[in-house]
């Protein structure tokens, strides 16, 4: 039995639920709204770029910009918050307790994503707990007014995707042989230099995975902005959902989705290139060992 036989289920799943739908979305994006209801969701007799011209509106780019900012900032904050957590669990928690800590990270996921996000409405409400506490402590002079704004969306995104960031970093850190840390210290590097020269480079694949995963999920999210963002905290996902679900304009929604995919890919490629250049520069700065 050839080895690739085992890959069939995954391949089939991937093809039916990912490649083919993607192909349809791309095809739809070149179609137009059907004139008669009987003609199906999208008219494909005449294919054109009309939807893309329409999507290239000022509003799309403004929302796209906000989306990138929210997802980007969210990803960075998730990394800043998540790395120390992953580090602490992997490096300072004894082995037999580690799986319990990881389990605690995942426990919230047992509750519905929607419910957890809705719960934030209660916490963040102007008359809510957080607002009361901040006022009574004296940090705020008036009720907290971040619900249904971009700030609430930002918060919701960080909250929801933090574990997605922590887990791959944790896995990478956990796999680091502690004797490497000892070897580094033995060779004269203090804790900070050891962290920068040994721990970080070895954790980089996990960190990179966490960054990409979190960024993609956050950029495509539309549940959090829908629930916490109101009309002010709009993201591209909402725009696409509105076109498809509310306006019944599947071709325009598809064009926006395709543009989102393309732009996201572009952002990731640029980020990757920047990272590689930075690494190259750092290597040049250090000089060859021989």
């Amino acid at each position: 039995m050839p080895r690739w036989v085992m890959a069939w289920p995954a391949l089939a799943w991937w093809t039916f639920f990912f490649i083919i739908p993607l192909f349809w979305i791309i095809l739809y994006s070149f179609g137009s709204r059907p004139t008669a209801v009987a003609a199906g969701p999208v008219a494909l007799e005449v294919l054109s770029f009309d939807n893309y011209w329409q999507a290239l509106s000022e509003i799309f780019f403004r929302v796209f910009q906000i989306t990138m900012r929210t997802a980007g900032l969210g990803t960075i904050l998730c990394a800043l918050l998540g790395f120390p957590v992953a580090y602490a669990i992997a490096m300072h928690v004894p082995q037999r307790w580690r799986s319990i800590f990881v389990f605690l990270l995942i426990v919230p996921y047992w509750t519905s994503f929607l419910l957890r996000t809705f719960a934030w409405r209660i916490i963040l409400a102007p008359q809510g707990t957080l607002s009361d506490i901040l006022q009574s402590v004296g940090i705020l002079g008036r009720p907290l007014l971040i619900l249904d704004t971009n700030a609430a969306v930002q918060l919701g995104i960080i909250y929801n995707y933090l574990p997605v960031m922590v887990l791959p970093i944790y896995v990478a850190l956990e796999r680091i042989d502690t004797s490497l840390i000892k070897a580094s210290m033995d060779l004269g590097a203090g804790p900070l230099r050891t962290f920068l020269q040994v721990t970080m480079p070895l954790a980089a694949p996990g960190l990179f995975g966490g960054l990409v995963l979190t960024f993609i999920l956050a950029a495509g999210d539309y549940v959090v902005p829908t629930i916490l963002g109101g009309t002010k905290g709009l993201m591209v996902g909402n725009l696409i959902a509105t076109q498809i679900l509310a306006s019944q304009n599947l071709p325009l929604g598809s064009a926006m989705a395709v543009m989102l995919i393309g732009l996201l890919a572009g952002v990731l490629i640029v980020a990757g290139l920047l990272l590689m250049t930075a690494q190259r520069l750092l290597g040049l700065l250090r000089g060859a060992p021989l």
Partner: protein
Amino acid sequence: MAADVELERVSKLYGPFTAVDDVSLAIRKGSFISLLGPSGAGKSTILRMIGGFELPDYGTVRIAGRDVTMLAPYRRDVNTVFQNYALFPHMNAAENVAYGLRQDGVPAAERKKRVREALDMVEMLRFADRRPNQLSGGQQQRIALARALVKRPSVLLLDEPLGALDRKLRQQMQVELKLLQSQLGITFIFVTHDQEEALAMSDSIAVMRHGRVEQLGAPAELYDRPATAFVAGFIGTQNFLPGYRVDDSLLMRAEHDAMFEARRAARGLTRDAHVLGAVRPENVLLAGEEPAVRNRLKARIAATVMLGDTMEFVLALPGGRELLSRMPRRASGSLPEGAEVWAYWEPESFNLFPYEELEARQGKP
């Protein structure tokens, strides 16, 4: 000569377990010392305390006269070759070797020169740009050695560095390590549980048991004049015969009223003490006729074992105990299994020790 590394009444406890129990040790500058013992004897803990990875609960560690007991590893003039080599997987061989020099801020030109020299020293120059996962175990071992030695430490700590290598390569590395050590004049502290390795390489060996140094001495001294039955049994192979000392003489009354004569009794052996008499297999001779010596036993050859240049005879004694005898194969002649023989040995090769329960190598009743 001055002591390079000095341990003074050092102890380390892990909960109720005493890993190192009041050990004092002075290691001469430029010497090759092995810490030898079974696992859990505390030898690696001692090494980690010298390296700075473990803080002793009591006592003082000095390197070159300076108290370093509480000093961090990166502030000590010692380097370590780790058991699993601990090479940085994200750096190639040359970068691994350069790592320590980089931390010290050695200028680029000198750094390159020293890295090249270190790689050349371990004959790994042509593997300089290989990553650790592209190197064999023996090659990784050499890189680890170069990485530690390139910093020219006054003391090199080696934590069972040859454990993962196959026998042939291990013997080759033993010779190379020994040569390197005498060339460089660096103090080597070598941890091993392999007594052959320790005998082959060391100027002196500290035999450890239960967190204590049982005996410290040159290899030949430990082999010929072990202080306790444990050392006698741990270094080389040993036949032990239980019995009682006759008064405070060098005579021993063994099972079946056999009388044996020794030339040496362990220090502190009391009158009429319960003793173990020890004789090495190579000193047990075989004869067809009853020999005219006091130390003799009638035995049956239960098995013969070919050891290459030597032959080992497993002898069954009347009481059910076993006795080992070894001789050069040329001299072994025709002694078939099942043959009745006389086993005998000289008093010079027989030592008396206070009785103790030893786990292995003791003739089973």
